[in-house]
């Protein structure tokens, strides 16, 4: 288990515009073994404002993990990923792209932008739960992350 995460809830930022997908992720993380706090940004602009603690997000907690959809209104997930991975204060936060797109160009583009991993959302909710659980186990329990 990550030593720096044993005493506090793990902060997860979900960047997702579809309320149904938000609800499914909340439900999947609710079953988590790791105590977590899920924050939701409904678009890319809000996600970056949250990460940079701007405006109403001045007191936002730094996420330990970002779950990022690619198709977002306005600034899309690819642009958000680029912003995160070129910002020295944000680039170490692991970003998991969770999307319905299995297009090779999207996968290549995401890795070119230094995504930490790319996951295609499964159709079935049971499989979706399993995927979220696997992400959570790997990123929140197995890997060692920097504190900042």
């Amino acid at each position, binding site marked *: 288990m990550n030593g720096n995460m044993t005493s506090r809830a793990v902060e997860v930022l979900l960047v997702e*515009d*579809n*309320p*149904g*997908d938000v*609800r*499914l992720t909340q*439900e999947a993380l609710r079953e988590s073994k790791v105590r977590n706090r899920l924050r939701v940004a409904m678009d890319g602009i809000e996600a970056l404002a949250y990460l940079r603690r701007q405006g109403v997000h001045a007191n936002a907690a730094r996420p330990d993990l970002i779950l990022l959809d690619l*198709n977002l*209104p306005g600034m899309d997930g690819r642009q958000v990923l680029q912003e995160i991975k070129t910002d020295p204060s944000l680039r170490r936060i692991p970003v998991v792209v969770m999307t*319905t797109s299995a297009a090779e160009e999207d996968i290549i583009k995401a890795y070119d932008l230094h995504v930490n991993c790319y996951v295609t*959302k499964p*159709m*079935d*909710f*049971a499989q979706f*739960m399993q995927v979220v659980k696997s992400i959570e186990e790997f990123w929140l329990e197995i890997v060692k992350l920097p504190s900042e």
Partner: protein
Amino acid sequence: MGDAECLNKAALESLQKMAGAKFAIRMIDLFFSTVPPKLAEFQPALSAGDYHQVQDVAHFIKSSCRNIGAAAMQDASARLEQAAREGKADAIPGLLQEMEQAYAAVKVLLEEERRILSS
């Protein structure tokens, strides 16, 4: 179009099995509260010639349909998203009509599923 083509009941069964009937009902309610307003966004976007917006709305609806098993509507929205991405203006009105018909059909089936889940 048959009921099984409109609604893949396995999706709702999976939601119910993994998270309970109340959660499945909440997902149906969420579908009804979010999808009709999105359907209403198509005509203004088309009138403005904003295919990017048509693509975004179709993508949103596709995800909502996937979560609930609205298979025919999901398929129509996927094709609409593709047509908008490729700027195939001639194909869009027919796909919109197909999507609205698929919504009308799945609405009846989801209301029935909701009634069963509530009982």
